[in-house]
């Protein structure tokens, strides 16, 4: 009993501050942009002053100018349209098949036993090395490009997906079984939603790989495309065009990552 009976806090010996919080990413929108601005600013100052030679790095302002020319001439869309198509078709094919096989591996032990070594065997193959073969198999036109991107996104998606299925909380599955849920119901209501965070973070990686492979896919016989544009700029040692192309790929990467972020927020709204 405290000396002051009027206050109610007398029962509490000691106040404890809230110890939760932290360890959760908080969105700070502008810091990412600031990092970009500072880096590009430094490059601009360096190239303007001659500290960085034109052979080492192009002036960021010249790159912007090249980009503007590309946009004005309408060539941007001529290059972007085929690339986006290749990316969409290839990545959709690879990711769908990858998620499909990944879920099957996660659910069925026979498929796991048969497929995991196979996936492990084809994962480290540099897909670029197979490009000439793909040209023979699928022809020099679009099909070989779709195939290369699909093949490249397929393996990481499979690995991420069965990993995600494996990581679904077993206690939840046991709980479903205790409540008498059917196998189908458990898969649909517990396993798939539970694996979704892992599948989506796997997709982030697979789609980045798809963008990387876009340049490789356009090495052979592509007349238009961002990858073809970058390769041509490299062959001509035109650094402004090279960087303009690379910036487009980076922007594509940022856009795709944002899109997956949005999908994550929608699909995983049950988490919060």
């Amino acid at each position, binding site marked *: 009993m405290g000396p002051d009976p009027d206050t109610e806090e007398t029962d509490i010996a000691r106040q404890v501050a809230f110890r939760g919080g932290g360890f959760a990413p908080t969105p700070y929108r502008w810091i990412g942009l600031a990092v970009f601005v500072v880096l590009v600013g430094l490059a601009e100052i360096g190239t303007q002053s001659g500290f960085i030679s034109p*052979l080492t790095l192009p002036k960021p302002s010249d790159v912007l100018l090249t980009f503007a020319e590309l946009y004005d001439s309408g060539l941007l869309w001529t290059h972007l349209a085929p690339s986006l198509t290749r990316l969409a078709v290839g990545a959709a094919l690879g990711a769908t098949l990858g998620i499909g096989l990944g879920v099957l591996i996660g659910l069925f032990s026979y498929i796991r036993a048969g497929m995991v070594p196979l996936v492990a065997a084809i994962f480290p193959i540099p897909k670029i090395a197979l490009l000439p073969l793909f040209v023979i198999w699928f022809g*020099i036109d679009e099909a070989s490009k779709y195939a290369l991107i699909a093949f490249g996104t397929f393996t990481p998606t499979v690995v991420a997906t069965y990993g995600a299925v494996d990581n679904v909380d077993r206690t939840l599955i046991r709980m479903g079984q205790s409540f008498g849920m059917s196998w189908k119901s458990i898969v649909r209501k517990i396993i798939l939603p539970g694996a979704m965070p892992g599948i989506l973070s796997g997709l982030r990686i697979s789609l980045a790989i798809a963008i990387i492979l876009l340049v490789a896919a356009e090495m*052979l016989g592509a007349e238009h495309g961002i990858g*073809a544009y970058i*390769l041509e700029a490299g062959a*001509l040692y035109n650094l402004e065009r090279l960087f303009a192309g690379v910036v487009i790929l980076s922007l594509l990467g940022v856009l795709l990552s944002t899109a997956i972020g949005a999908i994550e927020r929608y699909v995983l709204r049950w988490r919060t």
Partner: protein
Amino acid sequence: MNRRKAITLIGGAAATAGLATPALSQNRKITVGALRFTSHSGSFIAFERGYFADAGLDVELKFFQAAQPMAIAIASGSIDYAVTAVSGGLISLAQKGAVKVIGGALSEEPGIDGQKILASDAAYKAGLTSPKKLDGKIFGMSTAGSSFHYMGSKIATAEGASMKFKALQKVGAIIGALKSGQIDAWSIVPHIAKPLAKSGAAHIIGNVSDYLPNYQITTVFTSARNAAEQKGMTGDFLGGFSKGVADYNAAMIARTGGKDGVDDMVRLIHKYVYADRPLEKAAPSIINGTMRLNEGAALNLTSIEDQLKWFQSETLVDADVTMDTLVDTSYVKTIRA
């Protein structure tokens, strides 16, 4: 012999030895870039027969897989001299003040077997039997702005044909595409063209020299700094290189040494080109690849000018690049043909 006579003799010998090696670049270490092609024989011969050493240069040969990285290695100062085709990339590097063309190497010459125009078997059977029928066909090239692009475009213009160009990055990929009929036509040096035609996978339908009679295919180039500041060393290099070229032309084209001369030369070149095949198998390819190397590294300015203009007209390089930016004519004899 008395003592005075002996001293005079020794002094004389020392003086002659001193004259033989230029004072400017005694045993300077330089690096020369090369591809494993017969067109680079000038460097191989000068190296093997000690012509570089005679010029006072301690040369190290460095091998590349493609011309593009070699040009960049020159620009970055990793290597000093190299031989490569004039391409959009080379012109861009010259514009950035990094490289300079200082001499000529491989060139087309009417009357000497040169680069061939090939048609794929499928296209040949469908009627592509002469360059006159190239209209609407697909022509293979490594990259936009490569020498293949230039040749194809020039042939098309001459025949009033409109062709599509397919960039396939590597010679191996182009050969694959030609064999499988994914491209219709291509132009390439004779030692690649002839075996392809022999195997039946492709057919020779014309000569590049019919369209570009004195085409300067490859040039000797160096960094702009070497060309401007290392005049002695650059002159010495070109001197040694030219001796190698003279030996090559004499043995392989004029055949002054007869069959033995050719065999000797092939054996020397085989150390560098097709070294993975036995000599008997490599020899025909090396002999098939024989084309004129410019005597004294002379440079055909008319051809270079035409190439520069073409690259500019295709907007592959900047319109304000001049011949002076690209070429330093102070080292070798220039040709107008």
